[in-house]
């Protein structure tokens, strides 16, 4: 199958959506499909061989994070050229409602179009106000995928319609053999992974809880992995604990796996805006027990505490209590290590990719023709034959199937 995937965000900046697309693409390539990814990037040389550059990006605040996006006339030309040359059987858009190559591709293509919604958020005012403009374009999407029940709910609230839920995957084999970082004690380390300057990742809650935990376990270390201002963080905790906090800054995915593996417990104190707990699965794949806030998305991944422990969201004293308990209970941790691995296997990309291919299959048979350019919305298209719906040809394609 020839599959064209559109990534809305900058490829050179790590993020959940980009990681999802990369893992999906690699899993599809392993199965022998042809895949090409159209993505904006500010560093063309580091693009993998399966990706096509859509131009550099501008930064905009979006959903509590900084999103690097692309939306200008040059992007239109590049997207259309990519569509024309790619000759794809399936066009797979990600986050089709962000101003990005995704929306341009939805606008300028017709045929078997699949879209994945990642965001879960209460209100996206920009989208709500733009809805009447986006609606006809969104109707071209034949199959919608949401990465979680929360993402599906957000999508339904904003656009109506329905979606199938296919969770995010994790590349278990990239994590299961991770080596420990030198200088850390597997029995005495708490790990946090996420941007330190993003309030919704909840690092402040962890820092509020840590003094009590440090008092209880004198040899305990805290490992904070992720970009952010170190001084800001140190300011919010008593200076006598400073020597026991280590920072890793921004790391690549191999080092990140080692960071998970070095932990006694991995803590995810997120406050919200998470649509799926991929970080939890990564930690579980390395065999590290997880302690997470009881957000609906996290609860579902941990199956209400079966595969990892939960504490009350944004409640530092509950976090401290659960953390002390879990570090002290070795047999419980061993149990969670085994259970966590099993859970991560269920979300391995080799399983998830089959579900995505099932979506492709059930859409591909719909049209019997591949993705092509759509001129219907334009004056040129309305005046020429290219723009008209050719019912006869579509009908015939079913007869020959």
């Amino acid at each position, binding site marked *: 199958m020839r599959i064209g995937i559109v990534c809305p965000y900058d490829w050179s900046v790590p993020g959940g959506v980009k990681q999802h697309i990369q893992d999906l693409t690699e899993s599809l390539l392993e199965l022998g499909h042809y895949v090409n990814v159209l993505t904006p990037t500010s560093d063309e040389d580091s693009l993998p061989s399966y990706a096509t550059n859509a131009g550099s990006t501008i930064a905009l605040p979006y959903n509590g994070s900084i999103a690097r996006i692309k939306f200008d006339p040059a992007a239109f030309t590049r997207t259309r050229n990519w569509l024309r040359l790619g000759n794809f059987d399936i066009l797979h858009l990600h986050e089709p409602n962000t101003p990005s190559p995704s929306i341009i591709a939805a606008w300028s293509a017709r045929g078997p179009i699949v879209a994945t919604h990642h965001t879960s958020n209460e209100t996206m005012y920009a989208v709500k106000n733009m809805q009447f403009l986006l609606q*006809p374009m969104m*109707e071209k999407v034949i199959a919608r995928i949401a990465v979680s029940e929360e993402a599906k709910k957000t999508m339904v609230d904003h656009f109506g*319609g*329905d979606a*199938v839920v296919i969770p995010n995957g994790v590349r278990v084999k990239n994590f299961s053999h991770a080596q420990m970082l030198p200088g850390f004690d597997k029995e005495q380390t708490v790990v946090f992974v996420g941007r330190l300057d993003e309030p919704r990742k909840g690092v402040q809650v962890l820092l509020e809880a840590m003094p009590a935990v440090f008092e209880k376990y004198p040899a305990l270390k805290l490992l904070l992995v992720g970009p952010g201002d170190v001084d800001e963080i140190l300011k919010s905790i008593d200076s006598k604990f400073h020597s026991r906090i280590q920072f890793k800054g921004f790391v690549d995915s191999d080092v990140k796996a080692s960071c998970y593996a070095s932990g006694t417990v991995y803590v995810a104190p997120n406050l919200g805006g998470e649509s799926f707990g991929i970080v939890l699965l990564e930690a579980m794949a390395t065999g590290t027990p997880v302690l997470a806030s009881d957000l609906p998305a996290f609860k579902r991944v941990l199956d209400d505490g079966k595969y990892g422990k939960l504490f009350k969201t944004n409640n530092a004293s509950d976090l401290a209590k659960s953390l002390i308990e879990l570090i002290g209970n070795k047999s419980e941790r061993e149990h969670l290590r085994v259970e966590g691995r099993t859970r991560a296997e*269920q979300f391995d990309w080799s399983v998830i990719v089959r579900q995505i291919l*099932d979506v492709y299959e059930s859409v591909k048979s719909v049209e019997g023709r591949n993705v092509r350019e759509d001129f219907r919305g334009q004056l040129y298209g309305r005046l020429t034959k290219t723009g008209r*719906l050719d019912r006869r040809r579509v009908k015939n394609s079913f007869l020959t199937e």
Partner: protein
Amino acid sequence: MEISSWVVVAVGLFLFALYLSNVAGRLDRLHLKVENARNALDRQLALRSAICSDIAGLDLLDTTLRSRLANAIHASISEESLDIHTKNEWDIESEVTKSLCELFNKDFDITKYPNQKNLIQETAGATRRVQYALTFYNDAARSAIKVRRRWLVRSFRLFGRASMPVLIDFDDQIPQGLEFC
């Protein structure tokens, strides 16, 4: 009337006609989408029946449940060849789903059947594709119905000769034992 007001009326009418043609075009695309989705659903159901007859012939599984599945498939296939699309047809598809669910209940363990792994995975895929195709069909039908209910569409008969899409409802759940296959 002044000539300028005639011009205003003419331009207004032209814009209104343009808008109507736009809505009609959109509705036409929606109808085509529904039609295609319906074809896809029929195709996935046929594929599921085909693969289920292999499962029904698998000696390793419980005999009574297998014969229930075989009966359901027989009904489904014969209905299809008669091309009768009644409410009854969807009950038969529900019955196929239910017998699959009993065959592959939550105690089912794929590791016990190493030689049949491919077949079982294919079955899991077929049940998923039926679920996806049904979701996409109903999604398309719902959006077409929503546009068709607008008074402008009804009063100007913008839907032409296309018939009103119907929602389809049958049991499309994925058997618990096949969930992670």
